[in-house]
């Protein structure tokens, strides 16, 4: 016999009550854990996708849309930008590196992004098999694309105009050939079909009769060449103050800073997250109240037990410890269950989102903040037990026994 065994026997003796308290607490904890995991991984993912990109230049329009389309490939682009203007910006002395993006087609819902090998390097892409493209219409596909479409090395496919799943006509004259498949890297590359930017020009140069795709650059006039966006890396920190204003004022293009736009995005999402978090806290609080009421009632039911324990030699502190431990035990079980549920929900949510080709969320990740949640749950358990424990401490043995 010890405090734990006695506390546990009491919890076992009231299974419904115990289950109610544990479930209330577990739901609160699970909700917060799920939120933590989801926002943490989402932020992590978005930060990783935007790393190394200081500025995105696109056609005039919403900066948020430019970021969403050119970095995360979640939205349609604002339009195209002229190749000549893009070239000028690329050569600006404040620019260290410029990666062009030419988009417009997709294959079974996965985007075809025309770019340069720098783009692969930006995300540290590794090849699971094959190699990078060496000429237009050679394509490298992300791991998720390979898994979902079943495309293998050497396979040919036709891009479909538009970036959605359903729409657009197929470009049947110029099929792509898969020459490389990337390893899964947890970045946006997993869901992209990457190719040379010239491929996009070839596919869309409908009125030209392209015989040899390799010298497409020469076959098109400069005004016919377009990019969708330009990803820039600054050469100097001073560029932050200068380059965006220069682009917005002196060119027909729009500059968008990923850091600023993603922060704005998170502040918008954050409202929803805060509401859910408040809801979860209310759940935990009501669990605490329920534990309190349960222990308080148990105190009354058990006043004889407590008095008898005193006659058997128990110190008041032992009785106090007994009730505190019971609150702690409830909180511990609730928090443990909540932790498991939260991770389970996150895993399920991850599977659902993956099916919708959205961001990856996994339940097999742990974040430091979870410790705070567990601490909070345990504190709630102890707080709820405090008043009943104090009453147990103060039990008047003789008066209690004389009544019964």
């Amino acid at each position, binding site marked *: *016999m010890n405090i734990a065994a*006695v506390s546990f026997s009491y919890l076992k003796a009231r299974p419904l009550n115990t289950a109610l308290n544990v479930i209330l607490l577990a739901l609160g904890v699970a909700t917060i854990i799920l939120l933590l995991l989801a926002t943490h991984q989402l932020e992590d993912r978005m930060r990783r996708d935007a790393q190394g990109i200081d500025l995105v230049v696109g056609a005039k329009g919403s900066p948020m849309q430019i970021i969403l389309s050119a970095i995360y490939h979640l939205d349609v682009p604002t339009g195209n930008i002229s190749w000549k203007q893009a070239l000028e910006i690329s050569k600006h002395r404040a620019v260290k590196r410029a990666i062009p993006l030419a988009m417009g087609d997709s294959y079974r819902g996965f985007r075809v992004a025309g770019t340069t090998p720098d783009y692969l390097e930006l995300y540290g892409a590794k090849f699971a098999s094959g190699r990078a493209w060496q000429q237009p219409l050679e394509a490298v596909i992300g791991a998720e694309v390979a898994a979902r479409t079943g495309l293998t090395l050497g396979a040919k496919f036709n891009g479909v105009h538009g970036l959605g799943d359903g729409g657009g006509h197929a470009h049947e004259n110029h099929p792509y050939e898969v020459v490389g498949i990337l390893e899964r890297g947890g970045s946006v590359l997993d869901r992209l079909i990457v190719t040379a930017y010239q491929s996009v020009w070839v596919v869309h140069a409908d009125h030209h009769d392209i015989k040899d795709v390799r010298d497409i650059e020469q076959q098109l006039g400069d005004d016919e060449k377009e990019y969708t966006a330009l990803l820039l890396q600054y050469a100097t920190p001073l560029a932050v103050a200068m380059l965006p204003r220069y682009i917005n004022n002196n060119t027909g293009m729009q500059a968008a800073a990923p850091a600023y736009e993603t922060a704005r995005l998170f502040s918008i999402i954050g409202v929803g997250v805060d509401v859910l978090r408040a809801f979860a806290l209310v759940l935990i609080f009501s669990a605490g109240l329920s534990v309190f009421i349960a222990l308080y009632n148990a105190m009354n039911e058990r006043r*004889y037990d407590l*008095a008898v324990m005193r006659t*058997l*030699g128990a110190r008041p502190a032992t009785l106090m410890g007994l009730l505190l431990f019971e609150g702690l035990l409830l909180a511990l079980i609730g928090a443990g269950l909540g932790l498991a549920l939260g991770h389970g929900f996150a895993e399920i949510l991850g599977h659902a989102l993956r099916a919708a080709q959205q961001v990856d969320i996994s339940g097999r990740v742990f974040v430091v903040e979870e410790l705070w949640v567990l601490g909070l749950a345990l504190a709630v358990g102890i707080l709820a037990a405090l008043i009943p424990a104090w009453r147990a401490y103060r039990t008047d043995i003789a008066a209690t*026994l*004389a009544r*019964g």
Partner: protein
Amino acid sequence: MFQLDNLQHAYDGSIVLRVESWRAAQGEQWLMLGPSGSGKTTLLHILAGILRPGAGSAVVAGEDLATMPAAKLDRFRGANIGIVLQRLHLMDSLTVLDNLLLAQWLAGAAQDRARAREVLAGLDLADKAEAKPHQLSFGQAQRVAVARAVVNRPKLLLADEPTSNLDDARCTQVLELLQAQAAACGATLVIATHDQRVKSRIPNHHVLGAAA
């Protein structure tokens, strides 16, 4: 074994108990007699060290309970007192055996399963060790309460109205059992009762008068 002198206790200003003098030697067996309201339970609580006397001295096992510090009193109870309450108040969430182990733990004694089982066997409860109290008959539950009271080999065994609500045969059984258990651990036995049937079985009587 214990020695009470000029003991007096009052609730809300009205005196409910008055004992001029009562001495008992170790191993003696006593009946505490008196009508309802004569303070039998109060005196039992004082002897058990769960109630401090309002006035006078109560020396039990060589210790003055009136002045003993609270923490020491807790230990004293665990080490020296065994008490069988009128309503047995067994712990319903624990098995019979665990009820005995609980008594050992709370008394600060080593938890000795062999001793607990031996006491249960002595009270014909060997097969009830794993049962919960609510599964027992009243007679069995009462024997468990006795077992719990004697498992720590107390020096003073107290019983509050153990024979009320029992038929004559049962009444005799319970008395014999208490006497035997007290003798087995050399405890002084005090039974508080207003049951006239038991008078003849135990010769030492202390009669409480109406206090007021």
